[in-house]
């Protein structure tokens, strides 16, 4: 990994009087696959549009490959963007869609032809040259949009929710496809997503955003295992998050004694981390569903609903049954307030 390739410095983005992103700082290394992750309205798409040059920042700067591009027009930045809707040109066939940008550069016809064909081969669309976008499936359109950006040899390739319009099977296929293309071309990729599973599976590093700010930045493993805030923990599947008061946890419903004294302000457990069938606490089962290797329970306790996964080997509890559980120290994730 080389040094910083894309640098956002105090980047402030506004829509009218609304500040969408206040003073964002982010460095992206060359050849890295970065996910901007967050719920809708967190500023991830806005940030991506600013990098592309489709949105002028209110203040701050954007450097790409050592050059200040803050005031550079979008068509001069050398950045590719794969739109969520693909934004293919319906009046052109697949070949001409991919060749569009090369033709604008007035390259020799032979080079246009070879680069376009190579681009289409990279995404597995050889033989589809004559098709109109409307005659292609969603997955093919997606790959066509990817090829159209890739043939321009962009410094940075941005992808807006690249997998959201695909069905589950295609999503998996496209995920491996994107990783392969990224390895082959070595292009720096930034993709925007609201789906943490997608970000975890695909990215080298994840930028978790909330309300225009970076909530946490790290590798998928770091974010998954060591979320630092309640927001990050919730996003990463810690469904039981409670405030700590002395040696017990509490929320609006009530409190439960832990039997140990944590030194963090908040504790969080995944449903997997809650022990079911034994423990000092009692609750009533309000929901139970079979999930293959385990059963997913919702237990109504002094803390309100607690989500817990129980091994399939344990006897099944029915709705209305009383169930004992424990919030063990070993599986608790300490969070800062």
């Amino acid at each position: 990994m080389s040094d910083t390739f894309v640098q956002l410095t105090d980047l402030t983005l506004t829509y009218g009087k609304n500040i969408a992103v206040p003073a964002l700082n982010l460095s992206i290394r060359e050849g890295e696959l970065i996910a901007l992750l967050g719920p809708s309205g967190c500023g991830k798409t806005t940030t991506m549009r600013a990098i592309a040059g489709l949105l002028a920042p209110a203040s701050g700067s954007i450097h790409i490959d050592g050059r200040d591009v803050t005031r550079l027009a979008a068509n001069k930045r050398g950045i590719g963007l794969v739109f969520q809707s693909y934004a293919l040109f319906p009046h052109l066939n697949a070949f001409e869609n991919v060749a569009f940008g090369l033709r604008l550069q007035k390259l020799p016809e032979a080079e246009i032809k070879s680069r376009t064909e190579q681009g289409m081969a990279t995404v597995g669309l050889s033989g589809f040259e004559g098709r109109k976008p409307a005659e292609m499936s969603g997955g093919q359109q997606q790959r066509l949009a990817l090829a159209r950006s890739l043939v321009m040899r962009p410094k940075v390739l941005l992808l807006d929710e690249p997998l959201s319009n695909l069905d589950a099977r295609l999503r998996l296929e496209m995920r491996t496809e994107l990783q392969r293309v990224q390895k082959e071309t070595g292009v720096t990729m930034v993709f925007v997503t609201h789906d943490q599973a997608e970000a975890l599976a695909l990215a080298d590093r994840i930028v978790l955003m909330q309300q225009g700010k970076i909530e946490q930045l790290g590798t998928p493993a770091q974010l998954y295992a060591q979320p630092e805030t309640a927001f990050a923990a919730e996003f990463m599947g810690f469904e039981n998050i409670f405030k700590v008061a002395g040696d017990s946890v509490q929320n609006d419903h009530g409190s439960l004694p832990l039997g140990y004294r944590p030194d963090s302000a908040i504790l969080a457990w995944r449903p997997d981390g809650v022990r079911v069938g034994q423990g000092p606490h009692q609750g009533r089962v309000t929901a139970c569903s079979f999930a293959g290797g385990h059963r997913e329970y919702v237990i109504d306790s002094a803390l309100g609903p607690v989500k817990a996964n129980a091994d399939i080997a344990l006897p099944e509890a029915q709705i209305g049954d009383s169930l004992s559980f424990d919030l063990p120290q070993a599986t608790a994730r300490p969070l800062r307030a």
Partner: protein
Amino acid sequence: MRHFANWGILGLTLIFLIGPFVIIILAGASAGPNLAFPPEGLSLKWYAKVFTIESFRASFVLSMALAVFGTITALVLGIPAAYALNRYDLPGAETIRTIVAAPIIVPGIIVGLALLRYVVVPMNVTVTVALFMAHTALVLPYAVRVVSSSMHNLRADMEEAAVLLGCSRMQAFTKVVLPNIRGGVLAAFILGFVTSFNQVPVSLFLSGPGVRTLPIDMLAYMEITFDPSIAALSALLAFMSLAIVFVAERLLGFSRYV
């Protein structure tokens, strides 16, 4: 029984729509000297005579020129207007739409009178220029409306994609927007052309000595002469409109845009 009633209603509607057209064609094909139906014998001599009437030739050329250039001007003004109304959150966009539509909402008589009283007379504009302005204004609503509707389905991110591939905003418009609204533009052109060509009330006020559009000339001709040539000319014009719509339908599927 129900089936029979359906066909009956359909038949009556078709007769109501097509009947006058048939009557005009036949009246023009009369062998007799007067405009009458049923025709007194059949002949094509009145169809032939149309082409020998000097004033019809002059007014046909004027009407044609007004329809073509008035519609092109309306499109040159209307396409950017439609684009702006679609793409940007303009203050007062609704008001602009209403104003643009005004020439088809306000009765032609009023438009004609207003143009004559407040433009032609005080500003000393020639009749031809006044006619050109009036026809452009009358066609503009069609241009904006029809082009707007074909632009409506065109997503803005397509232009952004073009820009990121190296286009300037203008290139994005000519290379991506324009090819995709081609059908709408052609539909607007045909609607505008027909509207302009058949326009009577506005032109009535703006015709001057020696400067008449074809419909006005036909009215004037009928006041003096009542022979079947007027029916023959009407039939020929109707065929011209039919031919234009037919060709457009064949080329672009015109009916999708109207």
